[in-house]
């Protein structure tokens, strides 16, 4: 059993001359809910894209449960689930058809039983034959979570999962994330802007600034380390503003 779910070593990526991620050294333990914070353009999505094997690193390496994202890319893809930000599914297909499509891409030959199980877990049954074009943003986000856990991934990557959700949707999603972690011990890596959500969901956090990781610790230790700050938002802004690493 590997205690480290995600480990990056000097992980870097450049888009042409522009360095989006600079030597990321990060470690996330198994069963943690890790929140990666940072302003727009800080490199959060690039980090997730690298860890989900969507783009190759320019330099450095990373492992997911001991599997190298480059050398063992296909094995990593079987191990992880991923929900990108603002993803749209096939609106002219029903929920069941969409989930069958993604289940088969994940290697599930007869996926219906598993789809039913996942929809029951998400308390989302009764919509199987409805077209996704009729779904609200919150419902579509549940579809997103459903497709990402169909193949029982051990590590789940969520890119701004609460983006565009109303307060009820945010609360529902928070419960789902916590349940996935509690019931299945799933390691969850999420990029987010909503610091209130981080406080209620994450066990550890990291802060990216202009492609560099400027802070990483457990949430409890973070709250203790900044006794003068009233909230995580204040702590985040404090970390973001300080000049030294």
């Amino acid at each position, binding site marked *: 059993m590997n205690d480290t779910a995600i480990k990056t070593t000097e992980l870097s990526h450049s888009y042409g001359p522009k360095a989006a991620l600079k030597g990321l050294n990060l470690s996330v333990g198994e069963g943690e809910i890790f929140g990666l914070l940072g302003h727009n353009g800080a490199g959060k999505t690039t980090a997730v894209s690298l860890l989900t*094997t*969507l783009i190759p690193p320019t330099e450095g390496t990373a492992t997911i449960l001991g599997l190298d994202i480059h050398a063992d890319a296909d094995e990593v*893809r079987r191990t992880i689930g991923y929900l990108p930000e603002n993803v*749209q599914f096939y609106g002219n297909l029903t929920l069941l058809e969409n989930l069958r499509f993604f289940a088969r*891409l994940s*290697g599930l030959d007869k996926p219906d039983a598993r789809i039913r199980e996942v929809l029951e877990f998400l308390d989302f049954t009764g919509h199987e034959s409805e077209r996704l074009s009729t779904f609200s943003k919150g419902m579509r986000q549940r579809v997103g979570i459903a497709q990402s856990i169909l193949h029982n991934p051990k590590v789940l990557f969520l890119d701004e999962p609460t983006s565009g959700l109303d307060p009820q949707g945010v609360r529902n999603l928070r419960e789902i994330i916590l349940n996935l972690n509690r019931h299945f011990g799933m390691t969850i890596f999420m990029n987010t802007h909503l610091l209130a959500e981080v406080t209620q969901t994450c066990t550890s956090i990291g802060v990216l600034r202009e492609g560099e990781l400027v802070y990483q610790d457990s949430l409890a230790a973070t709250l203790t380390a900044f006794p003068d700050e009233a909230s995580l938002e204040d702590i985040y802004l404090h970390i973001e503003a300080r000049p030294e690493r």
Partner: protein
Amino acid sequence: MPQVLLAVFVGMVTASSVIGWLTNQVVTSVYDRTFAAGLTTQPNPFSAVSPLYYAKNTVIYIILIGALLAIVLGVQSTIRDRKAHTFDLVLSRPVRPASYLGAKLAGLLCWVAGILALSALISWTSISAIVGSVLSPGDTARLLGFYALAWLFLLPFIILGMLTGVYSRRETTALLVPIVIWSVVTFVVPQLGTAAHPVSLLNPVPAIASQGGVFQLANLVLGPLSLTEHFKQASAFVLGDTATTGSPLLSLVVMVAFAGCMLVVLLTTQRDRMRSPLDE
């Protein structure tokens, strides 16, 4: 947009036979009057014409509308996945880009085959109605052969659309670039190689190279790139057009080579290229 192009294409295929029949009626009527006035003793040029003559105009509709439809379908199939970030969902799974793009292409080819099968049925029915008897098995086989050829001709355009959908930074560019390439292949290259007037390139009969030395040389160099001229050449042969000469083998080889090259480029597309964001 694809729905409009599809409707226009199917409508034109239907109209194609009617246009051929009307041409026959007009020429025969003029011929009859000319013959009655004793101005000619030659036989009616339409008396020995093959029933497949009526499908001749379909060649041009496939080059003009069919190719555009293929391009639009190809572009939309890939650019939609980029815009919607569906490629991210697919490629974060153990799926090879070549497998996914190949499957998408196979789906599109099935769809295009369905459209062409419908067009073949329309052509067969309307020609049979015009000539007043069911097409012979030989002519039916030739008609089906022509539509199979059309499928092969459209294949590179579907792939071209898919590729620009993957590689372009903007949606407008993704549509514009393959249309420009189609225009060059359809009009500019044949014109450079044959000195034919652009309008004459819309004739289903292949353009004949000018006897001028420069054009002979240009035809030698650019001839293999004249995909539409090769399609016209092979179609004319398959449809039994007596006005065409030579073998369709070279044309078939060129069409297969085009399709093969495009397929190789498509199937070697890189994972990170497929999910690159659009500028808009």
